[in-house]
């Protein structure tokens, strides 16, 4: 009989060997001669800690799996805490939450508001992807492609046609939706995992095109000086950008402060997010929302009842893409500068990680996950280096231990009321 000590020691040993070759030795080139040296001490320490963790995990395997089994739950969605179960309680809570979010920018620092705005963009992206992945059950690995379409739509429309943000926003959303529709139409017939790879390829194609079509997009240099949105034509600059334009502080006769702009952007992002949440809340209560769930459960049964799976999936794909388009054009406006670098596969993976962490299909879960995943790295800068490493690890562990996400969906059931 194999003792648990020896199997744990074996696992730790394997970890040491696997890790030593890449962590323990550093490769460098001196002149033209490649040389090796023993790595910096923190890598070695990291390796030893890793091996120690593996040893402990293996040694206490039985205990660990007891805990993880509990985490998994019974696969069912958990009940919400008692203070937020009824529709009325939820409405009151939502009211207070929105109130707090509205007040937040006036009470906190400029930096905090800025991070909050970024977080809201990720919330929006997470919610949009959640429609595709969580509600319709389609794994889209090229979501960032639609985000790019939205961002570049605004940037290019502004660059070539001098179009304002508010004019461009619906066009950007519409264009992203159109891309979603055109891509989805042929590929949504594919099986789930093939669909994932095809969308990944699509996202990469978009990025490569943006990178290489230098005459139109500026290539890797991107597009700079994208104007910020205006409030009914009022600009948030110190001086009007052109003859005849009015600035916000002149109009209200107050002195200029760069904070107005930051706060305005935050409030706009908040508005977009609230709108997104409302739209999705309605969608799940509409026939198409029901069809998404049915399709996720049994696509053969759906077809036998006359539901056209491709159309229903196409709905989710197009709607999800349009949210990415809105988020993208807002992102372009906030940054003032975009380049293909912002739209790599890693970005898609981060958005997917948000959906996975929050709980597929769960709006509240996705909102909280997006906050956690953007705010934590900002709070601990030294942690930034390890961000993607931990995201990857988290995706694996979540799938193994809690595939339904931290806060799984509690779907609203339509009830038959009888008198």
């Amino acid at each position, binding site marked *: 009989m194999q003792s648990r000590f020896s199997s744990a020691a074996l696992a730790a040993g*394997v970890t040491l*060997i*696997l890790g030593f*070759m*890449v*962590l323990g*030795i*550093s*490769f*460098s*080139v001196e002149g*033209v*001669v*490649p*040389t*090796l040296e023993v*790595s910096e001490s923190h*890598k070695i320490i990291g390796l030893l800690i890793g091996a120690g963790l593996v040893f402990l995990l293996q040694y206490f395997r039985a205990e660990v799996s007891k805990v993880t089994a509990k985490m998994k739950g019974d696969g069912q969605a958990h009940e919400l805490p008692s203070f937020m179960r009824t529709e009325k309680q939820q409405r009151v809570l939502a009211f207070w939450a929105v109130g707090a979010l509205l007040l937040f920018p006036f009470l906190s620092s400029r930096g905090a508001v800025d991070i909050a705005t970024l977080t809201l963009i990720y919330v929006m992206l997470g919610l949009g992807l959640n429609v595709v992945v969580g509600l319709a*059950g389609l*794994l889209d*690995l090229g979501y960032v492609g639609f985000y790019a379409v939205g961002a570049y739509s605004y940037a290019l429309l502004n660059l070539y046609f001098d179009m304002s943000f508010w004019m461009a926003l619906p066009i950007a959303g519409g264009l992203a939706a159109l891309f979603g529709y055109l891509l989805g139409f*042929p*590929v949504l*017939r*594919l099986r*789930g*995992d*093939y669909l*994932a*790879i*095809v969308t*990944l*390829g*699509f996202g*990469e*194609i978009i990025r*490569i*095109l943006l990178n*290489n079509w230098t005459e139109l997009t500026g290539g890797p240099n991107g597009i700079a000086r994208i104007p910020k949105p205006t409030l009914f034509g009022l600009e948030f600059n110190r001086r009007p950008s052109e003859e005849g334009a009015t600035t916000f502080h002149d109009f209200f006769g107050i002195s200029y402060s760069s904070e107005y702009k930051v706060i305005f952007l935050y409030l706009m992002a908040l508005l977009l997010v609230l709108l997104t949440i409302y739209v999705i809340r309605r969608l799940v209560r509409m026939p198409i929302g029901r069809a998404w769930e049915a399709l996720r459960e049994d696509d*053969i049964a759906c077809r036998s009842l006359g539901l056209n799976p491709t159309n229903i999936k196409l709905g989710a794909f197009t709607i999800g893409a349009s949210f990415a388009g809105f988020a993208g054009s807002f992102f372009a406006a906030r940054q003032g500068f975009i380049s293909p670098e912002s739209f790599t*596969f*890693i970005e898609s*993976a981060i958005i*997917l*990680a948000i959906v*996975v962490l929050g709980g597929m299909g769960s709006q509240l879960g996705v909102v909280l996950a997006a906050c956690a995943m953007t705010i934590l790295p900002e709070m601990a800068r030294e942690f930034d*280096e*390890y961000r*993607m*490493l931990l*995201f*990857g*690890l*988290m*995706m*694996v562990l*979540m*799938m*193994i231990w809690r*595939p339904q996400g931290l806060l799984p969906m509690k779907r609203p059931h339509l009830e038959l009321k009888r008198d």
Partner: protein
Amino acid sequence: MSDSIYYFIQQIANGLTIGSTYALIAIGYTMVYGIIGMINFAHGEVYMIGTYISFIVLAGLTMLGFDNVFIMVGLAMLVGIMIASAYGFTIEKVAYKPLRSSKRLIALISAIGMSIFLQNYIRLAQGSRDIAMPSMIQGGFLLGDPDGSHILISYMQVIIIVTTVICMAGLTLFISRSRMGRACRASAQDIGMTNLLGINSNNVIATTFIIGASLAAVAGTLLGMYYGVVNPYVGFIAGLKAFTAAVLGGIGSIPGAMLGGLLLGVSESLTAGYFTAEYKDVVAFSLLILILLFMPQGILGKPEVEKI
């Protein structure tokens, strides 16, 4: 006239070189898919790790004063195979085995997480910049006029193609003759049934991952020496290319992966040679999308019948 023919043949030769390494990596995708029906998204990272290991071994041997290139390359490949297959084995144990009864998408997300994890693990360990290895095998066969139109096939290209042929022949022998090979083939047909017949499916699956990782490490060593550089991000694109090759040939089919790899390599090299190198990745991805849409079973694969 003859000029353009020389050019064409040169492109084909280059394409076959790259294509054979795609084929080596594609075997890993196709065998795993054939047996457990999942896309091993982290496979490209195993290839990348294999390249790093072989670079480290080559550098180590150089420092120790070895000068026989063949022994050095052989050793680098051997160590690369050992470490990469240990990675392949571990990846399966950690990230896929607990999910065998889950839905496909759950396993795929886990695989994507694994891929991101490995990529960043290597980035943290070895830095995110290119590391370069001076070319150890120089020269080649020259056909035609050295100053005018000619074809140059480097010794490295020859080594890549010959090694690939040897690996493929070995794999074919293993699959068709050995006991484990038979078990693999049976499992690809129906893994539940072979399990009932007393074949340990865990061993079969582990073997599949080890074979796939070994071949990826061979490809990593060869391609690393061919290009002379590696960085933590090469696995992602190489993995996608190899997956395209596997799908093109018909996923689940080993000869299909070989054929698909060669076809993809040649079509990429022709695109780069006659149109523009910047869009060769676009060609590969568009090819993937088109095959999946119009020929999802690939060239040598079998069409799937939906179970109702």
